[in-house]
């Protein structure tokens, strides 16, 4: 059975988890309880031939092209939120990091740090969501690890995922490729993830139906790279939002970026919530969006490719790379004035990815 067939297979019947079952220190001890935890919780949801090799290592076939590796720790609170949970987020986040290198992801790894006393049913919910996200993405979770920490020394579950991917020949993506005159594209609305998380926070509850945009972008990226192999840069505007992403690119360089506020899509509810909380949607984390910088003449063809994918339906051009005001991101505001788009200063809102 191929990897793809296996991960597309729905998990079979397995013993049910009782609501009162909890993670204990012995689940992390490496003994029988650990094996039991893996057999009951992880194996059924992650099932794929790489895992089933049953080694401590996953052996991958040598792919054509250059290999990229990316790793990311996920410590989000709350663990479950509208539009996803820590499990799907951990899969999507790492797939996207790999994809932003222009790469096709081929395998993931997952490391869990679980707090003693965590409900087994919740852990299963997370494993199921991770397994489903990996299956949908067509990328197997090739190997994993589980540790348990004493009560009070964690916050439910932390997940670290690593992704491995392959960059097709001829694709050279990187900040050194930026040049004045290039177009800046954005794949869709800003702020959905951060506001969905905030809306769940205690003390900040406000009625909203905003869902996280958490999604895997590698399929859209594959089509983009195929359509315009010369595209200069891809980035996912996660922590710190679009402003951090763009500032990172130009700070300390001889280039600036000019964007147009009126072109930037923000859902009405997200805008209102930001208004209420005194936040700027440009500073808020996204988990299913990308920024693409490309030759101006590739902009329209790339936008057409992006819009064919559900993750890129609202893709737009939001600005250009410029030689003026190097080091700064400038924005023409909604009313036609101008201003700098600055990094968020002070504290990042606590743990939203």
């Amino acid at each position, binding site marked *: 059975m191929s990897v793809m067939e296996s991960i597309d297979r729905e998990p079979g019947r397995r013993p049910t988890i009782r609501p009162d079952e909890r993670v204990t220190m012995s689940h992390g001890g490496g003994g029988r309880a650990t094996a039991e935890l893996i057999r009951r919780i992880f194996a059924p949801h992650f099932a794929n031939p790489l895992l089933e090799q049953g080694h401590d290592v996953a052996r991958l076939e040598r792919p054509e092209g250059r290999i990229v590796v990316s790793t990311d720790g996920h410590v989000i609170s709350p663990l479950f939120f509208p539009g996803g949970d820590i499990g799907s987020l951990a899969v999507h986040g790492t797939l996207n990091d790999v994809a932003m290198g222009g790469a096709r992801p081929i395998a993931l790894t997952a490391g869990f740090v679980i707090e003693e006393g965590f409900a087994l049913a919740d852990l299963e919910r997370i494993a199921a969501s991770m397994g489903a996200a990996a299956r949908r993405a067509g990328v197997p979770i090739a190997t994993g690890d589980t540790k348990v920490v004493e009560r009070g020394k964690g916050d439910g579950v932390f997940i670290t995922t690593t992704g491995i991917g392959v960059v097709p020949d001829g694709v050279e993506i990187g900040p050194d490729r930026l040049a004045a005159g290039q177009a800046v594209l954005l794949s869709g609305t800003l702020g959905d993830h951060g506001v969905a998380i905030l809306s769940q926070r205690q*003390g*900040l509850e406000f009625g909203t139906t905003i869902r996280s945009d958490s999604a895997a972008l590698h399929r859209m990226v594959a089509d983009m790279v195929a359509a315009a192999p010369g595209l200069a840069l891809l980035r996912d505007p996660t922590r710190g939002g679009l402003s951090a992403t763009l500032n990172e690119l130009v700070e300390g360089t001889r280039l600036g970026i000019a964007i147009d506020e*009126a072109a930037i899509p923000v859902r*009405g*509810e997200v*805008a*209102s919530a930001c*208004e209420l909380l*005194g936040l700027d949607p440009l500073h808020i984390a996204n988990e299913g969006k990308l920024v693409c910088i490309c030759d101006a003449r590739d902009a329209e063809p790339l936008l057409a490719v992006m819009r064919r994918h559900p993750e890129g339906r609202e893709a737009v051009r939001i600005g250009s790379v410029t030689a003026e*005001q190097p080091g*700064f991101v*400038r924005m*023409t*505001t*909604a*009313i*036609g*004035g*101008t*201003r*700098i788009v*600055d990094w968020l*200063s*002070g504290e990042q809102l606590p743990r939203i990815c």
Partner: protein
Amino acid sequence: MKYVEEFRDRALAERLAATIRAEVDPARDYNFMEFCGGHTHAIFRYGVQDLVPANVHFVHGPGCPVCILPIRRLDDAIELVERHGVILCSYGDMLRVPASKRRSLMSVKAEGGDVRMVYSTLDALDVARKNPDREVVFLGIGFETTTPPTALAIRQAEIEGLTNFSVFCNHVLTPAAIRHILDAPEIDPAQAVRLDGFLGPSHVSAVIGSEPYEFLSESYAKPVVIAGFEPLDVLHSVLMLIRQVNEGRVAVENQYARVVTREGNTRAQALVAEIFERRAAFEWRGLGSVPDSALSIRESYGAFDAERRFALSAKTSREVKSCECPAILRGVKKPKDCKLFGTVCTPDNPMGSCMVSSEGACAAYWTYRRAETLAEMAADRACVAAGLEDAA
């Protein structure tokens, strides 16, 4: 959101801007003070300056509650934590404001002091309920908009018999501060800034109404337009001020009539009057001692007054020496006139309060206009250097 977007429409903004351009007298300057930090923020956030002609100037006023709290009061708050061992509940902005000796509530917290950030006075009451064996003090700051929630919290604490809850009251009053600015010597026409009119606060006015500004037109012959916080509100209000000036009229006009009435919110006013009374004078950073400009808790609610409950020592509090916040808060200097701006002082390492609050002038220049500001500073320095050479 529709509602909000209506006030940020680019075509409408351009129409207003064109009208302003057509009506300003190019032979003169217009200096308008926006009293309120919320307006300062909106002006910078939307680049409103770019839509008005160069001879229309925004002078940024002292209406940023975090900015005007004198260091002494912050030192007092720190003393409450360190000497009296209270749990101090504060709005987030206040935590990073520099106190004496480069300390802040944030650094006090890092050193183990029990300082907690709250989003509302209700959160502070909750802290008091959950810690019955601790003293819990809410650091009350702000203008007339934040006073009613503090009053409510005190009344609620009384109803519940929360005897471990009190308020360190630093609530201040807008009209008294405006009067003081107009009385201050710098505003004398012979001196620095001549003010041709005021953009009146929107949220504050929703509480106190427009009537308390009438003295400005009556005794000081200054036009006032109470302005909403949206960028188009600001543009529209600027146009209304320009018209008053051009026509030689002096009146209190209300651009924000969708929210503000002449009487204001009388229920909120009654609640505030029940719990607070005027202080004879209060020290403002930048303005000095301003008569009748702040509130304290009435004796009948004295049990909830942290100043009565805890002995606070006399102190000599010191500002960072070259920080120009005081002059900036009076509208006589701009952030570019401070030599610490952008070099030593940034939002990540603030030397003065105006760099901390998002409503502070220094933070606004830094966040939204620092490219231009730093360039102007360099040009000013070059001018001075050239002048020195000429003189030599």
